[in-house]
């Protein structure tokens, strides 16, 4: 029986439950200094003068760095998606701050408190400028410009048309038109972003420790900005306390590197929570105009979307929130023609960036809200409308108009299983009875496709040229000289249990148990194989990383078999790996342990087969085979392998307080073969909780001057154990034919349909009040206003 597929507890848990994890802030290299940053109090302001002399003179302060100095000592940060006109962005604001919380100077001192005292002594003369806070105004050219050299706040505007959209609308019996808004929110990992930089004067080399999720890309930026060859950049990730896409900020590593170089000592910087909420990374907000052409029987004919993304000051990955929506724009439905008009617009807000599902939650929200509204308009049950439009199992693999390839799955079966698990018919009766007694109960359905593995070739749609492409990852497996096995992966986990799952995969390949496989913690560029594409992002573990691990383990396995065949004088085809040894099938005495084979490989090398290279280590990199370049019609699989899910929930609205309580929540999902069902179920719970938070609680609210009004956990509300129900999870397993183990992505799942499921349920509960949910979160105040309006 294989280890893959078994629900075994985390190997990592033994240290983490005892408080013996090693997180970034637990690390303290010798002579460590601590950094603090001066941050802009204005959304948009010119730096007229900056005087750091008093800060530099404070006892205990070792180095001070201003933006102007950073611009002299380093090169601009290279964007992942460049703007049409190059815009230089350094690790500190140079002459202008463009959002509240943007760092403009930094101090390194003997401890954090002294560094913060010194920051208070920095004198800045600000010239406040009008702030751009409305992305739509920016799209119309009516907002103050962040970068006058660009001449616009619009980073990308394009209209992509796939199929006969105009014909679809012309043939339609009706068109549903609606406008939806999506707030800025974030998954806010409990550990904030942090980094340590050290500089070695003798070799002009830098060492970094960080919880950055995407080391491959970050190291390229560091080498380029610091002007050193890449071999002189070493980067290590320890245990990472949650990521969800948020944990990336090469600028902070650069600030620490420049301070470390100036001070001649290592420098640590760890965000406080206010810095994290106001300045690290927020999911882009925006508005979306949707038009859906349909026939009276509910058949969908065409979809047209106009999507305006509020990027904040995002110069690293602008338009990513737009582009990724092409991966799930049609959701699980057979829609033959799709038009997508993208606007990516700078505003004076926190940079937007990756956040669990990036763009897909908004796309799914709009589409699944539209399905709920259309069902109501046509007098159809919302489940029935979906069932009439799903891509069916018989149509797999199915390519959507923009080029996304749905590889496998049975979407109608997923919804039917969820309805059955939820007791849909029974709950509808319960709802009717409750309504008769005056209670406001609502049932919400939302279903989703969950793409995994970003194909970076898709950025060509935006930039017009290909830079990076595909989805790939690297891994290493090594039998050590004592016969024990070590593995390492270029993707540093942030809670996904890779030490456990990688051990399960390697154990299967080498005939071991997971306890016999040591998987390296985190990431170390000096010992872990890695690619520019390496990192913990885009849901890629199941669909890309697994191939790297399987490939490396198989190479080691083949070498073990060759060495054993030679030593046992047997045919390799007659050998098997079992219980930490290689033996001849059916002959228990003719066996060599891994320890004995390792001795041959590393020490007694004259015992190797002729021509065999000493050592027992293999590296392998895998690229997902579904990635392709953009074609002439600008179709491209922006994401590669598709899981799917159906969420059905029951909510009750309290007319007295406006509060929404979730009474029942069922998820049925299909992520192909589940590598470890315990980890998978935990991820489904967690991602669904993120969806519920976005639906009911979380929003970064900015005022008209661009001031962030929700910069603490007192006003930016996260769900607690009282807000999340006991989520009931069921599963189907349709393995992907395009991943080495048949697995699909599962990390983003619940966060994609969750907001729509809750919104649909609340709207259903308030159906007698004529409410249409167009924006999130659905706060008690919002509900109260709806009920006040319609007594």
């Amino acid at each position, binding site marked *: 029986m294989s280890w893959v597929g078994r629900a075994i*507890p*985390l190997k*990592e*848990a*033994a*240290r*983490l*439950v*005892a*408080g*013996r*994890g*090693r*997180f970034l*802030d*637990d690390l303290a290299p010798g002579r460590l200094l601590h950094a603090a940053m001066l941050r802009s109090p204005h959304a948009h302001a010119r730096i007229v003068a900056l005087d750091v002399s008093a800060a530099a003179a404070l006892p205990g302060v070792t180095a001070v760095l201003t933006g102007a100095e950073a611009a002299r000592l380093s090169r601009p940060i290279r964007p992942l998606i460049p703007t049409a006109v190059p815009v230089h962005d350094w690790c500190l604001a140079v002459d202008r701050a463009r959002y509240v919380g943007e760092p403009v100077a930094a101090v390194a001192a003997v401890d954090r*408190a002294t560094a913060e005292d010194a920051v208070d002594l920095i004198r800045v003369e600000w010239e406040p400028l009008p702030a751009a806070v409305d992305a739509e105004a920016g799209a119309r050219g009516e907002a103050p410009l962040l970068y006058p050299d660009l001449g616009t706040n619009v980073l990308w505007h394009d209209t992509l048309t796939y199929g006969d959209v105009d014909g679809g609308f012309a043939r339609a019996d009706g068109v549903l038109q609606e406008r939806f808004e999506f707030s800025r929110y974030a*998954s*806010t*990992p*409990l*550990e*904030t972003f942090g980094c340590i930089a050290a500089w070695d004067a003798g070799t002009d080399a830098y060492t970094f420790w960080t919880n950055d999720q995407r080391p491959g890309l970050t190291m390229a930026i560091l080498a380029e900005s610091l002007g050193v060859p890449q071999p002189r950049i070493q980067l290590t990730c320890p*245990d*990472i*306390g*949650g*990521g*969800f896409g948020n944990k990336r900020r090469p600028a902070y590593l650069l600030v620490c590197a420049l301070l470390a170089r100036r001070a001649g000592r290592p420098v640590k910087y760890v965000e*406080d*929570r206010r810095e994290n909420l106001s300045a690290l990374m927020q999911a882009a907000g925006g508005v979306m105009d949707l038009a859906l052409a349909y026939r009276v029987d509910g058949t969908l004919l065409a979809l047209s979307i106009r999507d305006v993304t509020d990027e904040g000051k995002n110069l690293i990955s602008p338009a990513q929130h737009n582009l990724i929506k092409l991966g799930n724009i049609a959701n699980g439905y057979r829609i033959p023609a799709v038009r997508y008009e993208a606007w990516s617009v700078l505003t004076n807000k926190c940079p937007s960036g990756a956040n669990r599902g990036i763009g897909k939650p908004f796309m799914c929200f709009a589409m699944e809200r539209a399905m709920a509204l259309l069902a109501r308009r046509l007098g159809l049950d919302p489940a029935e409308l979906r069932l009439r439009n799903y891509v069916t199992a018989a149509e797999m693999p199915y390519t959507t108009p923009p080029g996304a390839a749905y590889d496998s799955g049975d979407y109608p079966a997923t919804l039917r299983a969820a309805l059955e698990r939820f007791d849909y018919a029974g709950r509808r009766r319960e709802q009717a009875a409750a309504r008769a007694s005056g209670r406001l109960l609502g049932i919400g359905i939302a279903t989703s496709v969950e793409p995994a593995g970003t194909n970076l070739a898709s950025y060509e749609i935006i930039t017009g040229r290909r830079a990076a492409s595909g989805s790939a990852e690297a891994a290493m497996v090594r039998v050590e000289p004592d016969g024990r096995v070590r593995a390492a992966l270029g993707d540093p986990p*942030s*809670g*996904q*249990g890779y030490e456990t799952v990688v051990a399960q995969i390697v154990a299967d390949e080498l005939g071991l148990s997971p306890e016999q496989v040591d998987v390296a913690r985190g990431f170390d560029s000096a010992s872990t194989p890695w690619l520019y594409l390496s990192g913990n992002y885009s849901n890629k573990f199941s669909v890309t990383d697994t191939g790297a691990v399987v490939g490396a383990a198989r190479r080691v396995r083949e070498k073990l078999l060759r060495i054993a065949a030679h030593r046992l004088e047997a045919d390799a085809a007659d050998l098997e790996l079992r219980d930490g040894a290689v033996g001849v099938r059916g002959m228990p005495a003719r066996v060599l342990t891994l320890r004995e084979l390792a001795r041959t490989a590393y020490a007694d090398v004259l015992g190797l087969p002729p021509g065999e290279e000493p050592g027992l280590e293999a590296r392998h990199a895998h690229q997902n085979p579904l990635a392709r370049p953009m074609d002439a019609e600008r179709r491209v699989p922006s994401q590669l392998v598709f899981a799917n899910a159906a969420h059905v929930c029951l909510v009750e609205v309290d007319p007295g307080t406006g509060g929404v309580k979730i009474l029942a929540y069922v998820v049925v999902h299909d992520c192909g073969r589940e590598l470890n069902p*315990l*980890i998978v*179920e*935990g*991820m489904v*719970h*967690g*991602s*669904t*909780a993120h969806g519920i938070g976005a639906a009911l609680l979380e929003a970064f609210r900015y005022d008209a001057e661009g001031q962030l009004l929700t910069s*603490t*956990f*007192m006003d930016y509300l*996260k769900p*607690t*154990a*009282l807000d*999340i129900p*006991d*989520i009931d999870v069921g599963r189907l397993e349709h393995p992907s034919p395009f991943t080495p183990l048949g697995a699909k992505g599962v990390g983003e799942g619940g966060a994609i349909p969750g907001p729509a499921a809750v919104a649909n349920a609340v709207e259903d509960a308030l159906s007698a009040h004529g409410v249409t949910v167009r924006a999130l979160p659905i706060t008690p105040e919002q509900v109260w206003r709806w009920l006040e309006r319609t007594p």
Partner: protein
Amino acid sequence: MVSRLTVNGEPVEREIDVRRSLSDFLREDLGLTGTHVGCEHGVCGACTVLVDGQSARACLLLAVQCEGAAVTTIEGLTPAEGLSPLQEAFRACHGLQCGFCTPGMIVLAHELLALNPAPTADEIREALSANLCMCTGYVMIVRAVAQAAAARA
């Protein structure tokens, strides 16, 4: 000023800067890095420790306020060998993902089970709502605490 307190059963006598938080004191001066700092404004509970047996936010306490008190951290709740039943239940039930909130959650659950050895699921949720977890959606944390309580009964 010089403060005297007990940490995980050991007497500690130190010169402590009056503005040093208990969490910084534990982590940086005593090297007890199992106590994590998640928000520094008393909401997330990652820094939860026991002060004279009661849960407290180590980020909101000054170390000097603990003069004469007995402070217990996750290290103090961990046996020299193996895991406590509560820790074992978190492991077995997958009551953690990234593990950053976990020490605070376990300290909080330890207090709950000391006060209420057989809590209902609702009582567990009520108690755990003091702390934030961003990974698990709480479902398996609630299961872990319930399993630990059942194992003790």
